């Protein structure tokens, strides 16, 4: 019994120490809650820190960062956000929808401002009203469809794999299906529930004779991209990525969002709030509309594809 009391006391003492430490800081704390480790989300966070710097704020003097990673676990995201609230952070940053939702819920009591990033549909997530703002990474679907049409003038079907439970993917698919006919495409899509089903979905789409694949910013698909590319390369079918990291790994091209740029934009918005120049309440969220063309010349050559000059001039070579 004694041992148990000691154990519980030790546990309480540990987090008392750290809680006490956090509470006595005078420099405003920015609590960053990232849903999980992921190339796009990491880029976003790095861009955010850069954005604060570009807005003239100095780490250590004007703010300190408390970065927490929820490991793709919703209940951990909840506790992280509650920790931020308990520690009276000046600002909460939620990267990806579940983290942002958790932050917004925890921020309600003390009305702590929340800034989100990398959320495709803030309206659906009910994060568009209140003391919250941020940046949306809506996929430049038009640009991607246009790019595919220019590289593969004869193509008819685009295959897309997505996870049925990822909000970003669900709204992106809807947009693809709406806009594809305008570019003369039909979409063949397969929804999966977990990562292990992705490679099977690839086989199915290949057997249906799609002319190419296009990626959404879907965690499950992007997570197993190398094995997807193995199959599509063997079949001679090109894959268009949604972001530069994917093109680096082997996708032929992408009209993609620069997540670092997205992060920088977010950082600048946060800086305004910290400086008192604006409140999250009064700042509508911003959707990044700029995109870049990324190409992987080696991958294109393997597929026997060429990029028309108008795009090649603007494109960023990303092959490794």
């Amino acid at each position, binding site marked *: *019994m004694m*041992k*148990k009391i000691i*154990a519980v006391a030790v*546990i309480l003492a*540990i*987090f*008392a120490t*750290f*809680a*006490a430490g*956090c*509470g006595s800081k005078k420099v405003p704390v920015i609590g960053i809650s*990232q849903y999980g*480790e992921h190339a796009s989300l990491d880029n976003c966070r790095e861009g955010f820190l850069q954005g604060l710097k570009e807005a003239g704020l100095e780490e250590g003097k004007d703010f300190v960062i*408390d*970065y*927490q*990673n929820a*490991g793709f*676990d*919703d*209940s*951990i995201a*909840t*506790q*992280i956000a*509650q*920790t931020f*609230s*308990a*520690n*009276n952070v000046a600002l909460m940053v939620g990267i990806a*929808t*579940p983290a942002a*939702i*958790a932050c*917004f*819920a*925890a921020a*309600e*009591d*003390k009305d702590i401002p929340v800034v989100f990033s990398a959320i495709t549909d803030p309206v*659906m*997530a*009910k*994060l568009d*009203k*209140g003391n919250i703002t941020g940046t949306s990474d809506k996929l430049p679907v038009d640009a991607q469809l246009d790019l595919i049409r220019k590289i593969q003038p004869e193509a008819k079907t685009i295959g897309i794999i997505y996870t*049925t*439970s*990822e*909000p970003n993917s*669900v709204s992106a698919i809807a947009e693809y299906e709406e806009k594809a006919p305008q570019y003369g495409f039909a979409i063949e899509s397969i929804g999966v*529930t977990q990562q292990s089903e992705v490679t099977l979905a690839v086989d199915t789409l290949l057997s249906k004779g799609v002319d190419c694949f296009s990626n959404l910013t879907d965690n499950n698909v992007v997570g197993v991209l190398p094995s997807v590319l193995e199959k599509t390369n063997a079949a001679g079918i090109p894959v268009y990525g949604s972001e530069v990291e994917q093109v680096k790994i082997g996708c032929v091209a992408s009209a993609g969002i620069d997540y670092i740029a997205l992060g920088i934009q977010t950082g600048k918005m946060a800086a305004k709030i910290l400086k008192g120049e604006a409140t999250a309440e009064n700042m509508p969220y911003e959707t990044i509309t700029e995109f870049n063309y990324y190409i992987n010349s080696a991958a294109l050559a393997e597929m026997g594809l060429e990029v028309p000059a108008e795009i090649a001039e603007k494109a960023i070579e990303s092959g490794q």
Partner: protein
Amino acid sequence: MGSFFDLVVGTVTQGLIYALLSLGVYITYRILDFPDLTVDGSFPLGAAVAAVLLTRGVSPYLTLIVAMAVGALAGLVTGVIHVKLGVRDLLAGIITMTGLFSINLQIAGSNLAVDRATDTIFTAAPTMALFGAMPLIYRKLVVSLILAVVFKLILDAYFSTQSGLLLRAVGDNSTLVTTLAKDKGSVKILGLVISNTLVALSGAVVCHEQRAFNSTMGTGQVVFGLATVIIGTTLFKNLGFVKGTTAVIIGSILYKACIQVAISLGLPANLLKLITAVLFLIILVLGNRRKSGVNANA
């Protein structure tokens, strides 16, 4: 220290909300001796139902009741699959859980958020009338405490009835139940129904608290439930006066506390789960030490 107190309040609140899930798993795993994976499906089911009803303007308290009713149905399905169709306990739960994943998507889509303008059980008029003076964080604690205590007391009262005693018997020695001229299958089904009612309730309350449903929120909840039941019952094994229901509520709070410690320690974020695992190990080893002491002397 203001922030330390807030940390404790937040952690305990989470522990109490999830304690409802732990109570549900306690019934199936500990009392019925039935590892029930339905939980991974019935937990988000409760949340899905609550989210849809809240966004349609249904009274927050009513959403809890409907969630419980639907959870009961889920338990019933698993029970019937196991008892009447003869499928193994583990598999019966998996079948229901898998089916529920699709059903949850049908009910609420992949994600459904509830905006701040909509009242939840933490902000609705009756709650405000009683606890409106408190800040939201403390109000959440009080409401969660009331829910956990009320359902704990209901369960305790139930276990002291003839029906409850029979339920305890079926997990302990189902042959005896047959010899008592009762259908052990029906008793098991009842246990599954009660359990999943509580689990769905837990999911609904989480939805109220987070103002969101997402279709993957059930993943791993059965593991959470089992961990809290084992932690709670191991720690209080030799303290007979602490009822099982109390032990698992404490187990749930302890689990959340371990995660909170890991977060507050400020170590690299990726180590969060490892740290949590180490803390569990410490708790379980301390709990078992006492037990092995008794065996050595026996």
